[in-house]
């Protein structure tokens, strides 16, 4: 059948196949790299096996409501990072970004301690894809705490 096609049509079919193959390859690479390309560990990811304490890793999730406790030295704090399935206690010393809030997203850079807690030396605030004026956010407050 192909032999009866005009060269122009052959090239069209070929080009479309090439395009779909390329887009598909991108999608495949995306799913194949799922673990390697993850920016951070979620608490549930490390529930079974902790990354070794001498590895610099990131831990991401929501800051559990009511878990932030500032320590007496003025620069340290404890809080709990959760993803709804598991949670990890974190100790951080330093200046937190403005958007670091309870019930909001956070990515902590640091390392795990053998006891399963996390020692953070830097915090990044992670916000979600919802944007709204303050009045509206007040109205939907319960929904705002939905873990990602």
């Amino acid at each position, binding site marked *: 059948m192909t032999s009866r096609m005009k060269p122009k049509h052959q090239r069209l079919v070929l*080009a479309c196949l090439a395009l779909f193959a390329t887009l598909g390859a991108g999608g495949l690479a995306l799913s194949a790299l799922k673990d390697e390309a993850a920016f*951070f560990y979620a608490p549930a990811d490390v529930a079974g096996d902790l990354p070794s304490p001498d590895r610099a890793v990131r831990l991401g999730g929501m800051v559990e409501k009511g878990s932030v406790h500032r320590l007496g030295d003025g620069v340290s704090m404890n809080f709990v990072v959760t993803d709804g399935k598991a949670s990890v206690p974190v100790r951080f010393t330093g200046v937190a970004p403005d958007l670091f809030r309870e019930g909001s997203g956070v990515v902590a850079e640091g390392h795990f301690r053998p006891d399963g807690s996390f020692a953070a030396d830097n915090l990044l605030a*992670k916000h*979600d894809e919802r*944007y709204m004026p303050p009045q509206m956010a007040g109205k939907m407050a319960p929904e705002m705490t939905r873990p990602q």
Partner: protein
Amino acid sequence: MPIFHALANPARFQKLARPLTPLCFWAGVALALFGCWAGLTRTPADYLQGETVRILYIHVPCAWLGMGGWSALALASIAYLVWRHPLAAVAARAIAAPGALFAGLCLVTGSIWGRPTWGTWWQWDGRLTSMLLLFFVYIAYIALSRADAERGGDGRIPALFGVAGTILLPVIRYSVIWWNTLHQGQSIGLTGSTIAPSMLWPLWFTLSGFSLFFAGLVLMRMRAMLARQKVEARMRRMAAV
């Protein structure tokens, strides 16, 4: 298809491009300026990010043009590979520089946005890294197509590169869904948006404005390339006589 064939005629293209260039350009500038003004002064601040959220109105159009630009470049490349019409190759080459600029502006405005919100200028997360790769792919395409034109190539190699580069588009699009990233998820999808309507509307003005402005730039660059080709062809003919 008849539309393509009509457009593929260079004389007819010139006739169409001449009035269309200033129209696209100035309509785009007007819409974009209005959208920026509205986004800076006529919308509420975000409940979490405050005024910083206003960077959205330029960051999103830049990202859209960076990715949309490559889609258009790839489609023009395919049209060239299939129909072998030189105008398609000209279009692909004309898209490259503005596309690279907006991909770069997307990275720059994103970085400026990241500092006050995330607390960092740059992180190697999936979305940021794949967008940076797209920027490099644009640069590589520009270098490749320039080298190809200088060596008198027929533009088939840059066109193949244009098709191959589309591999990045699904990676960028789905990086925030399939990988966990610092970058937040998609706000605007086919089914709706997670941006409050009172904050969303100027984005439509900047998106359409930037797109028209981009079209105006591409038309200008196509006309420049076609005129240069005409001069070169005439010089060669005169030298041959």
